């Protein structure tokens, strides 16, 4: 089972030229997670949990930096870390489901990073060392979110875990759907654009410079 997981998780490392992109995608995910956690820290009423989320966010931000640097090294040139929004999980689901979602993500992340470390141990020891440092944090994050689900959020935790699983599945479904339908949408838009081509002459005629004064 572990061999199968290792193979799946590390498949893209084996494709030439993919390593830096994968590392950059990891960096992006960690940066996004840091934003989610900062929002959670601002929103929770409990100062102790706010502090936990802030510590977690600082870890994620540091991971993003490490992975961004590693992506540039792997590429052999600077790369820009894309800046996107985040899922606004706390805002959408509330704190209990948010914690369940984060816990689920950390568990998955920990498993993946274990596979990545095993893959790079001999192939790229510096990268393996960087990933190991991240893995240590991932284990801690998995542990504390698990403790929250068994402690202050124990009441209703099972339901929260189910909702988190559904939200996660929904997120993956939408992402897969977008990836699958993008080529079809692109084709349809190209056809529409070509059909509208005769209007281009009129559109060009509309362009004018200078002041347009109001009556």
């Amino acid at each position: 089972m572990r061999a199968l997981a290792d193979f799946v998780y590390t498949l893209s490392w084996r494709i030439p030229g993919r390593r830096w992109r994968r590392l950059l995608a990891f960096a992006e995910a960690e940066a996004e997670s840091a934003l989610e956690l900062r929002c959670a820290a601002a929103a929770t009423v409990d100062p102790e949990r706010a502090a936990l989320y802030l510590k977690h966010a600082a870890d994620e931000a540091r991971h993003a930096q490490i992975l961004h640097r590693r992506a540039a090294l792997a590429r052999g040139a600077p790369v820009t870390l894309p800046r996107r929004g985040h899922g606004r999980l706390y805002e959408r689901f509330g704190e209990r489901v948010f914690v369940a979602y984060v816990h689920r993500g950390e568990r998955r992340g920990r498993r993946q990073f274990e596979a990545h470390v095993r893959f790079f141990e001999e192939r790229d020891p510096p990268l393996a060392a960087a990933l190991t440092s991240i893995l240590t944090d991932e284990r801690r994050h998995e542990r504390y979110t698990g403790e929250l689900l068994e402690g202050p959020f124990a009441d209703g935790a099972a339901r929260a875990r189910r909702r988190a699983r559904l939200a996660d599945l929904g997120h993956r479904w939408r992402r897969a759907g977008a990836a699958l339908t993008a080529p079809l949408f692109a084709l349809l838009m190209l056809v529409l654009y070509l059909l509208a081509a005769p209007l281009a002459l009129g559109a060009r005629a509309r362009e004018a410079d200078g002041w347009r004064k109001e009556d």
Partner: protein
Amino acid sequence: MAAVLGVSAHYHDAAAALVVDGRIVAAQQEERLSRVKNDPSLPQLAIDACLALGGIDAAALDRVVFYENPYRKLERVLVGSLAAFPRGAGFFRRALRSQLGDKLWVLDQLAAHLGVPRERVGFVDHHQSHAASALDCAPFDDAVALTVDGVGEDESTALWAPADDGPRRIASIGYPHSLGLFYAAITAYLGFRVNEGEYKVMGLAAFGRPRFREAMEQLLRVSSDGSFRLRTSAFGDHLRADRAYGDELLAMLGPAREPECPWDLQSDDDRRFADVAASAQLALEEVMLALARAAHEQSGARHLALAGGVALNCCANARVLAEGPFERVFVQPAAGDAGGALGAALVGARQAGDSIQGVFDPALGIAADAGRALAVARHLGLQAERVDDPEREAAERLAEGAIVAWVRGRSEWGPRALGQRSLLSRADDVTLRDVLNRRIKGREPFRPFAPVVRDAHASALFEGAPSDMTPTMTTVCRVKGDSLPGCTHVDGTARVQTVAGGGALDGLLQAMERQGQRALLNTSLNAAGEPLVAHVTDALDFFVRRKPDVLYVDDVRITR
């Protein structure tokens, strides 16, 4: 008497603003709460924050006003992509995806989020929103508004006269002839992020010589009536917000700079890029002056109110005041798209019959919660305690050379830290400036810092200060002498903030005077690429990660 919510969203810098009975009650940028820089998404957090600050329920809103016309915007996008046929195919696809996915339905989204009837949700024109935010916040009458940005619905620049039901358009210049587009293209050319790196271009310009002036004059041609024309063929990818320049521009200026490369202004390449920045900045200033003269000629007004993203170019604003025909110039501090939310609310209030009241104060965002800062800091393992006189104590620490994170009251409206969410240090110490740039903020080494000074000392330290723009840091002034090396730019100017009597920052500056210092270095409480801090937890997050010496949240002192 009406409660009106203004909203900007879906392009960049989403925001919400609340005007009740003609008074500006709250204004909040979404990025500050979502922590996503330039967050364009529907500003649900900002809306909720504004309603909470106003103490009203969404059901009590009389009107909700979006800052631009989504239908005319769609038309412009479609026409623009067709006009660029066949190069516009990619843009057409991307634009339709985002328009049909979100932007076209924004009024329905707002009604659904707020739970208000759809008929209470309307819109005003993009540039009218900008103009209202400038005219209604300006500290003077007898004014004309000049709005200059990338593009609104289909105009990039417009002149506006005040009117009872919202600004009335006098004249406009149509897209793609756009100063915002021109500067965005140069920003991208220099390897910076568009809509964020424009300040960097302005800072970099001071290190260069405008030796590409002739090329810029070909790119941006000014007419005798003050209008301008962009050489659109050089902006071949103007439909791409992240690049915006074409091969013709590369042929004129040389290869573009790779993003993320470290800067070395001693190298030939980076000196060339500094020269390009200097040339572009000069061209922009010349056009802004021409526009100001045209505004004066067409309106006859004595005063000028500026808004739109280009109005954040404080070097150009300084020249407009110094060399232009107006007696006074004011810039609404959130001059970019965020400010459109405020303008939309103000137009909505006027259309509901209210007159706009009160003196504009940019401390319009969420309040600091010192008690919460105290509690969270202790759980983070930090030393946190209440102090009797934070101004006196902070002044002593600053005088000793400390870098102080300073969080007071309600957060600022606009991109500048004005003493509510600031990082402060001595203004006379160059080493502190370098520590701030490299270690604390993680910025490019060429970027300058700004000084803050009480009104009473402004004229002794700076030429042309105080002015209507200095309280909100929307202009630059020449520094007299060499007493502020930590925040004097290489060209001898500084983007000074002046502080009138009263308030915590004034108290701190008075305490600094007792330490023998008349000015402080004041920069935004954020790291490079991050939004300005809003919540106290964001301030604590910054304090833990970036390690300034001490953090004050109202009367709570936090150290390690």
